[in-house]
């Protein structure tokens, strides 16, 4: 399912995407589709995809603060000028965690190639999420150190959300993931508060 398009980058691994609005695509995504911790893929012309996770969301509203006198109300404006699109937007932050080749081979960690403005952002379904984390050893989340080192205030919570989802998706490896999750939780919640 398509969610958004890349509009900006803050670094080699951190991108900003604008969520598709009604009228721009056949089926516009609901807020639940691009929730915090949602895994996404950004296909590239070569056939491979960058894989990332939604770690932030920002609302853009040009009318915020425009409190001066107006000739018409916004409801009248839709009647008088129906082709004028609303200028509000939802921006999501996407942190790249790895890549997936056209053959389905997964690489976790820093992605070699940068994305381009306009690249479409798709949501990964559960099967794709599991395929991205599956390995010969059963489970791999080698991007977690990169994620935790990112420095965004929400990355620890993001890591906790991801590890919790991994516990549920990979019950056979729940023990190892739980150790990691509990370690992160202790550091980010207990030690941070202590």
């Amino acid at each position, binding site marked *: 399912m398509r969610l958004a398009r890349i509009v900006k980058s803050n670094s080699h691994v951190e991108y900003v995407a604008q969520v598709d609005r009604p009228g721009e695509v056949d089926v516009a995504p609901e807020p639940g589709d691009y929730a915090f911790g949602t895994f996404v893929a950004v296909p590239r012309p070569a056939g491979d995809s960058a894989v990332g996770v939604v770690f932030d969301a920002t609302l853009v509203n040009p009318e915020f603060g425009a409190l001066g006198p107006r000739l018409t109300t916004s409801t009248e404006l839709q009647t008088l000028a129906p082709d004028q699109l609303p200028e509000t937007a939802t921006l999501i932050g996407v942190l790249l965690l790895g890549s997936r080749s056209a053959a389905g081979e997964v690489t976790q*960690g820093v992605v070699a190639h940068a994305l381009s403005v306009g690249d479409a952002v798709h949501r990964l379904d559960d099967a794709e999420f599991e395929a991205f984390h599956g390995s010969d050893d059963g489970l*791999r989340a*080698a991007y*977690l150190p990169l994620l935790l080192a990112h420095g965004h205030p929400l990355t620890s919570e993001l890591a906790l959300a991801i590890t919790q989802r991994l516990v549920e998706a990979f019950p056979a490896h729940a023990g*190892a993931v739980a*150790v*990691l999750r509990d*370690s992160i939780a*202790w550091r980010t919640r207990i030690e941070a508060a202590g």
Partner: protein
Amino acid sequence: MSGAAPVGTTKGPGETPHTYTLVAPDADDQLKIGEFVAYDARVDGELRSVLGRIDARRPLKLYPDAFMADPHVPPSRVAGLIGFDHATPELYEFDVAVLGYFDDALGFVNPRVAPRAGRPVYLVPDDDLAHALSRIPHGRPGAAHVGSLLTRARDRVPITLDVNEFASTHLAIIAGTGAGKSYLAGVIVEELMQPSVGAAVVIVDPHGEYGTLEEIANHPGFRGNGYRARTLVVRPEQIKIRRDLLHPSDIYQLVGSTHGLSGPQREVLRLALRAVGIDRGRRWTYRQLTEAVNDVELSGGPRSADDEGGDYALVKRALMWRLNATLGRQDGIFDDYEHTSLQELIRPGQCTVVQLNEVPREEQQVIAATLLRRSFDGRVGTAKGRIGSGEEQHLPAPVFTLIEEAHHFAPAGEEVPTTNLLKQILAEGRKFGFAVGLISQRPGKLDQDVLSQCMTQCILRVVNPGDQQAIAGAVESAGRELLAELPALSKGQAIVAGAAVNTTVLCRVRPRLTPHGGESPDVVDAWRRARSQLPPVDRSLEAADPESARTPEERLFGSIQ
């Protein structure tokens, strides 16, 4: 110098001038405390393999504690989950004491410069190590094979003691109870009785633990080229010591052992001994001594108020009571005429076990003192030509005497008949071929001068901190770092240090050829056997006796109404 694969890298100088630090992952757990490693260095223009011994090990890089939260999940699994797949993630730093390169003529020669950082370090190959550690190679005459290097697989690196060295500059075997000291002593005696050595060995055995060495005489390992080792186990009832061969100090010690000697009693005894001619080497009998006691005349001095008989009659009576209870006992080991021959006890190729169990400690000390004094005098006299071949004290060959429970014979802070004698032997014995091996489980209670003069030390597990401190104070050659291993040693593992080896080593004691006699008794089995020999309980009597129906508590405290 070595084609061995490197196991680590030198980091730099250590805290002391003769140590360096080594960094290694040690994935195979090869770099144990006491292990020997080497690096190649150019010394005086020649490439040398510089050996060192690992004394300490510290982790540099370990998994976070939090990774060990679940005992079912190894930390490596958690690390692998986040992409850390290194087979050897841990890293350790080791303190290595530099021994130096080994020179056949000079032994270890310290290059006196720490290795540069980044030098590859390898494990010293077994053969090189066997050559460097032991002064005499295993199998050569004069090499006492006591075991193998603990840090290598069993028998890969044999450890031998130089018999010439410890049989002249003395030996100490120190261990806590049950750590295997009498077992190791048995191994050393076995080596001394090999055809290539054929020593004259005497064992002072206060607990009767060494009787099993009798098997040496029947074991094929102790025969060859016309030689056959002999063993003589002398039991308490077989020991006889002629009274007139005792030293006055032995007699004072023995007579005063039960209730002490008062000043007047001691004086009467001194005069009586002088009267029988003890200071002139005259022969005397017990009866002559008692008569001399009665005949002693004292002039002046304190006299008891109730000394009605005069001449210190009470003093003499008390002294006689003490003499009769010790020196004059008819069933004792002291005799007017019989004396166990020194030449019968001490012969090359013979191991004599003098069993002193069931003998009071004071008598043990006097027996040991008499035996040591006469044999030492015999060796000195023979060496100086004063004692001829026909005389009883003629001892033409060096003597090695093992003394079990040595802290009873040279206790710290107390003087017993053997103390000064042992000090004299330790100081002068080397010149005359007379050496002792002291065995003790309480080094803290052993005279420190005595312990420190034993130039070869075999130290087994010691847990008592006071004893550890005593060892550290007296044994200079064993590094303090290795001595820290003492409580961690297992049964049959020993630190061997001193003059009979080229450097301090951790040794796994070899199995005995003869049975071991000092094993802990099976108490439970003894109880079971004793129960089975009790007469059956008559249950009909129990039924008739209402008392028997009550519990032991009820019999003691009565029934609660």
